[in-house]
Structure formats: C-alpha cells, structure tokens
C-alpha cells in the first residue's frame, strides 16, 4: 500500500476485497481509486463534485462522473456495487442521513470515514478559546469550510443504530496510528466504519 496514502484511505484500501466493484463517492483526485485499481484489481467508479478533480481522474484513466453526493446517487441502481465508499465527505453533505441511506442502497456494504469533531483538540479549542477549531484535519475557518455537518464518533454510532444498519468493522486513527475503540470518542482524529444493511 502506498505510504503516502491518507491514513483513513489506507485503512479502507486494505479492507476492500480484491476484485470488488466499488463506488467512491466524493473521490477527489482519484487517489484511492487508483490504489484500489492498481493493487487490488478493483472495478472502481467515482462520483466527484469538483470539475478539476474529475478532469484529473479522467486523465488518470478512471471512470468518474461529475456530480453531487446529495442528489446524484439516485441515478445508481440498487446493489450495483459491492462497496460504496464515502471518505471525508459525509460532513460536507446537506443531508448526511439520506446520503447514508443511498450508500447502503447502491452498495452492499459501505465504508464511511470522517474527522471526529469530538477529538480532544477540538474540545479544548472550544472549551478554552471558545473558538471553532482550525486543526490539521479541519484546516478551514468556519465561514468558508465545506464541512457543514460536523459529526462525532458517538453521533455517528447513534445515527447508524437509529437506521438499523450494522457496523461490520470500525477503525479509529490518531495520525496514522490505530487506537482502541475504548478511547475513540475523544482520542480519534479519524473514524472509519464499515457498514451493512
């Protein structure tokens, strides 16, 4: 696996079954798709909002459609993919709950990764400074951030339980180190969940 791959992407890449059909929702410049295609023989498709990113993906020989996770997943057939992947995108959608439903409609399983808004640095920032945090993972000020629905590990677990989805696996990351679920609520910078219906 590429050493340069973002830790949550590396976790996802390592846990996708070889040869699977994958839809990467919010695939960015296609980094994960390229790794999946080249090292795990995955049939990868992507959906991405930004035209420059889509052009970059197509230039890499990837099959990527310019579109919006909030509205364009509706055009994908039920169960067309083994996995739907939503990495670092959930918190940017208008209705994360509905996007989650769509992920588990088009994919038999879904990987969802997001930055944990209850990480202790975020809490400390709010508690001591009374400021919205600007951290390594959340580098953009509140007024221009695309992250419009911040979510914590506990929030996400609750949503998943409410929807009746199953957590197949979960990984919590601090930097590129995996940490135990016990301390995840405040120590995880990234959370990665593998869900199924």
């Amino acid at each position, binding site marked *: 696996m590429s050493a340069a791959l973002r830790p949550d992407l590396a976790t996802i890449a390592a846990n996708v079954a070889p040869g699977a059909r994958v839809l990467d929702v919010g695939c960015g410049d296609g980094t994960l798709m390229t790794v999946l295609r080249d090292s795990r023989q995955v*049939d990868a*498709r992507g959906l991405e909002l930004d*035209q*420059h990113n*889509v*052009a*970059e*993906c*197509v*230039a*890499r*020989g*990837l*099959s*990527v*459609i*310019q*579109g919006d996770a909030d509205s*364009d997943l509706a*055009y*994908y*057939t039920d169960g*067309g993919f083994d996995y739907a992947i939503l990495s670092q995108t959930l918190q940017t959608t208008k209705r994360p709950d509905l996007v989650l439903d769509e992920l588990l409609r088009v994919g038999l399983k879904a990987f969802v990764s997001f930055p944990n808004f209850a990480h202790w640095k975020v809490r400390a920032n709010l508690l001591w400074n009374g400021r919205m945090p600007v951290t390594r993972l959340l580098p953009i000020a509140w007024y221009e951030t695309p992250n419009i629905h911040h979510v914590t590990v506990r929030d996400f677990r609750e949503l998943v339980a409410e929807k009746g989805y199953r957590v197949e696996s979960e990984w919590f990351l601090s930097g590129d180190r995996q940490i135990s679920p016990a301390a995840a609520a405040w120590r995880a910078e990234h959370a990665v969940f593998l869900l199924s219906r």
Partner: protein
Amino acid sequence: MSGADLNIVNDTLVLPVPLPLDGGQALAGVEVAYQTCGTLNADKSNAVLLFHALTMDQHVVGTHPKTGKPGWWAKSVGPGKVIDTGRYFVICANVLGGCMGSTGPASLAPDGRPYAMRFPVITIRDMVRAQVALLDALGIGRVHAVIGGSMGGMQALSFAANWPERTRAALVIASTARHSAQNIAFHEVGRQAIMADPKWKGGDYGGKGPENGLAVARMAAHITYLSEEGMHEKFGRKLQDRSEKTFGFDADFQVESYLRHQGLSFTDRFDANSYLYITRAMDYFDLAEEHGGRLADAFAGTSVRYCLVSFDTDWLYPTSESRGIAHALNAAGAAVSFVELSAPFGHDSFLLDVPAQDRVIAGFLG
C-alpha cells in the same frame, strides 16, 4: 508540420453493396470519402475513428482543399499531440449526405442527374452505418476509440450503442442523445431560409444555388455556437469601420459584419441541399426512441468505456444533456466518466484551446 510526418491519405471508398437506410430504402453505389493519418499497426488495434460535426468534413489535418485552412482538429491530432498519430491511426469520413466527396444530394443519381431532393432522408445511424462499412473495407474489426463533438458526438453515441463490439471506448464531446425542440427550431429557421431563397428552385439549382438562404442559415446557426458572454466580449456594440451609426441597414455593428462574413464564406464550401439533409438527420436523432424509449436500454450490457464532456457556456447542447447520458450509462452499469469543463467559447469550445479538455482526452485514450 508537413503532410509526410502525418502520413495523410485522402481516399474514397465505393461501398460494394447497397447501404440499408433507416427510412427503409437501400442506397446503391454509396461513396465514402475519408482521410487517414498515422499508421495502422500490424494487428489493426490502434485505429481511432473521428466523427465530424455538421459543417465540417474528413479533413481533420492537413490543408483543406477548398478553404486552404488547416483541418478542423489539426490542433489536437498529430505526432505528439493529444491524439498522437505516432500511436494511433486516425480515420475520419465525410458523412453520408455531405458535400466533400461522400454521397449526398449533390451526387449523381443513377439517371445521371443530381439527386437533389430525391435523395432519401437519412439519419445519424445511417451516417454511422456507412462508416462501419468503411471499417469493414479497411479490415478493422474493433477500433481503439470513437470520438466526436457536437453532431460527431451523436455519431459516436450511435456507433457505440449500435455497434458496441466495434469499439473499446467512446468519447462524446458537447453533444446530446436527442435533439431538443429548441435545437430543431433553430435548424428549421435555417432550412426555411434556404427554401425561401428563389434560387433554391425546389432543390434543383445545380451549381451554387441559394447562396443568400444558405448564408442566413449559417448566420442563425453560428449564433448558437457562441456564448452570449463570448459574443459580448468579442463584439459588444462596437461599430464596423465607422465612427457613427449610418441610420441605414448596412452592417453598422461588428457582430453583423462578422456574421455576414461567416455566412458568405460558408457558401463557398457547403452545399445547400446537404445542409437540409444533415440538419434533418440531426433533428431525427433520438437514441432513446431507437431503443424503446429508455436511454439506458441503448447501452444495456455494454463493455464500451464512455467519456462525456460538456462546457459550461454551451447552451446549444448544455451540460444537462451530457449528464443525462451519464446517468443512463450508469443505470446500464457502464464504465462512464462525465465532466463539465469551464470554457468561455460556448458550443465551439470543443474545437478551441481548452487545456483541461486536452488532458481529459489524452487520459481517456490511455
């Protein structure tokens, strides 16, 4: 760049058997004028079939024999260019119904007189069928890719949907899966301008014919190829070679002068009846209708890789058309890419300098 580097060949094929048409007839003795450049490899796997747009022809590269200008995609096709003739054998044929060597309404019917309006109404699929016959004659089973912009994109879609085993990939630029009411309306204005010209004579004009009508048709169409912003930037309300309005009907404004020039120069290289037939073929195009009304069914089970490109300032075939095709391909489970690119030039962007398009084309061709 010399023609020798490109290995340009201009030739004409006479189809050995009558060409069946969607209208029910079969057309005997069809000629297909085509250009190739680059070199076909030993296993004939490196061919790229380009489809030209409404008013273009097979002269992709080299010097156009009528206008003396470079071919319509000389910018993108050649050694080391986006479509690299060092790797690919590029083929482009003048469409059926055209006027640059392929059989069209100006061609002679078996009775020795031009077909004129006796030429059968043809479809986009008929144009493609003639080019599949060309591939057969060249001994090419499967091309590496088909590529087209605008009407060329319609042909690329029709080719890939109807002959999916004949290509590995289809690149469709600034195009649509069906002509909209607005598209048909603009074409009808053009056709009526031609037919209202007394020199049209029911199509039996011989020689140059309804130049004024054809020029007006071209003027109306040309407006649809540009963006409003692009026009404003280029012409604004600037006057042509004068400092004041003349209070007459000369071309006071630069935009008028430009359109008149576009219209007139078009009549030097294009046949009016061809314009009627080709615009009709475009209006009849509806890929979903050909496949029972559901566009996704046109692509069912396809193994062709697709890429759709639209431009944000193109109001003739706007992004929503390409996105709709992408959604249909998605529903069919096809490997599809779709991207809307930013470019200021309107529909004509696909022919102009848009670096992002170059990267997409080169990446998609692989």
